[in-house]
């Protein structure tokens, strides 16, 4: 496959490409940062990437939102992934809220939000 072909393919599937790129950024942030807040941010970026991928599945080029009007015939996008991701977003918000409240508690107990520092205070184990 030549370079131009690869570029064209990437262009045609750019939603998927950027979704995966975002996923990797989020995953990397989550794994490598010691700051717990940054871990939660990474978690959210990762979730957003999955939502983007999921919504992109339902997109039809040139499609419109699926509101039926009598006598008018259009190409519609697939509404199901959008509806599912609405649920997904609600779930992600509640998990984030819960994670942040746990971080507040951790800060009260340890006086820091650095994972390494917490590990050092506890003496052993890994976060």
């Amino acid at each position, binding site marked *: 496959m030549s370079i131009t072909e690869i570029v064209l393919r990437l262009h045609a599937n750019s939603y998927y490409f950027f979704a995966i790129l975002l*996923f990797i950024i989020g995953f990397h942030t*989550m794994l490598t940062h010691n700051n*717990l807040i940054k*871990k939660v941010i990474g*978690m959210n970026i*990762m*979730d957003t990437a*999955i939502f983007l*991928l*999921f919504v992109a*599945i339902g997109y039809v080029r040139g499609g419109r939102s699926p509101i039926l009007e009598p006598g008018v015939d259009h190409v519609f996008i697939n509404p199901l*992934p959008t509806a*599912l991701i609405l*649920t*997904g977003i609600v*779930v992600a918000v*509640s*998990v984030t809220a*819960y*994670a942040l409240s*746990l*971080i507040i*508690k*951790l800060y009260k*107990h*340890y006086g820091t939000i650095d994972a390494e520092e*917490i590990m050092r205070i*506890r003496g052993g*184990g*890994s*976060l």
Partner: protein
Amino acid sequence: MNLSQHLPALIIVVPLFFAFVMPLLARWCKQWCVPTTLGAIIFSFGAAVKMTFQVMNTGPFSYYMGNWPPPWGIELSIDYLTVFAALTINGVGLLIIWYGSKDLLHELKSEVIGWYYTLYLLLMASMTGIVITNDIFNMFVFFEICAIASCGIISIKESRDCIEAAFKYLVLSVLGSGAFLLAIALLYMVTGHLNFTFMAEALPDAMVLYPKNLLVALGLLVVGLGVKAALFPLHAWLPDAHSSAPSPSSAVLSALVIKVYAVAMIRLLYLVFPRELLGMTPVMEMILWMATLAIIIGSMFAIVQDDIKKMLAYSSIAQIGYVFLGVGLMSESALVGGILHIFNHATMKSLLFLVAGAFIYGTGARKLSELKGIGHTMPIPTIAFCIGAFSMVGIPITSGFISKWYLALGALDVGRPFFTAVILISSLLNGIYYLPIVVNAFFSKPEEAVKEPKQLPRQMLVPLTLLSIGVIFFGIFPSLILGIVYRAAQLLLGL
């Protein structure tokens, strides 16, 4: 309207409804919290029993939510595996919270006890939902409810260990559900369905067109569910989470929550993915080896622990390995052993964790070295511990023996005696860490810490006794439960 027609929905809806009523009760009429919780779970258990009879008499059936037939609506599927899992969850869950109604009073602040029941009922509803739903996105939503509720029942005890363990568990289970959601996206992309049955129909064609999609989805599913079920290299969160939590939480997390994900994995691998795809990739082989490592290394870690609850937590890592060993071997007997071990381990591990809770309640000691001679001062919990420990080792007439027996037979059936040897070795390893506790409990002089324990209330003793009787009973009469497990295995293997 015929109420019994709607049991598959009510078994989830009733605990869910009372979960949200609970904070009101906790505010205005505190004494009603416990009876309401018990009532809701008894209802679910009764519904599970009723559906079991229905399935055994007339075969599997499904229920359409809101009367929308699939593929449009959400379908609940009631077959042998799902009623078996629902029975286990609600039966064991009932005994644990009955015990917890007294034990929690000394572990939690009085103002959060009402919230504990909310979380517990949410957990029960979501676990039942995970096992009986036939829709993959619905399963994901229940996963998330289950994840938050199970982190909640750890972090509700606001000690710093609990908060930290809950955070670690939360981050890893979000990672697991992220992987699962990505797998759903990839499967939906190629099949256009979310319903298990329809996906299974569409996948053989999709496999030819888009093999890579399916491979990635399969990998993500195994990893995502593996993290949540604490399958060996992905188990890092489990020891802290299960050992620091209040005892009833530890019992429900170890006995039920990790099993639910195993059930989900069994249903997805056997009912949704085409057999040819599983034959094409070494995924079953990988599960097999991860399970083997879990069994051996989990037991080895357990040997060196001095904290009784930490030891039990590491032992859970080993025991979940047996379930996955049964999944990976793909023979009828092994699958029967694996599914049966879900129930057997649920009873014996909840028994052991509750006994550990009783020891902590009575004496405040949780180090094994401080618990020597406890058999003299707390005889009933110690005898219950012995029964649980014997069952873990797999001594005949206890239920642990039956599931190990079927697993060993299954390994021989497919001509892999190596895995039979693994089961034997792990039984010896289990013996190494369980038997000294039993011996020390009865044959050592009581330590200072255990000389004058607090008397256990009846609400704690009765569940312990019932669980011990259960372990022995299903070891002597396994046929009662084997009937349904055999049918479940045959349905899964398509025999």
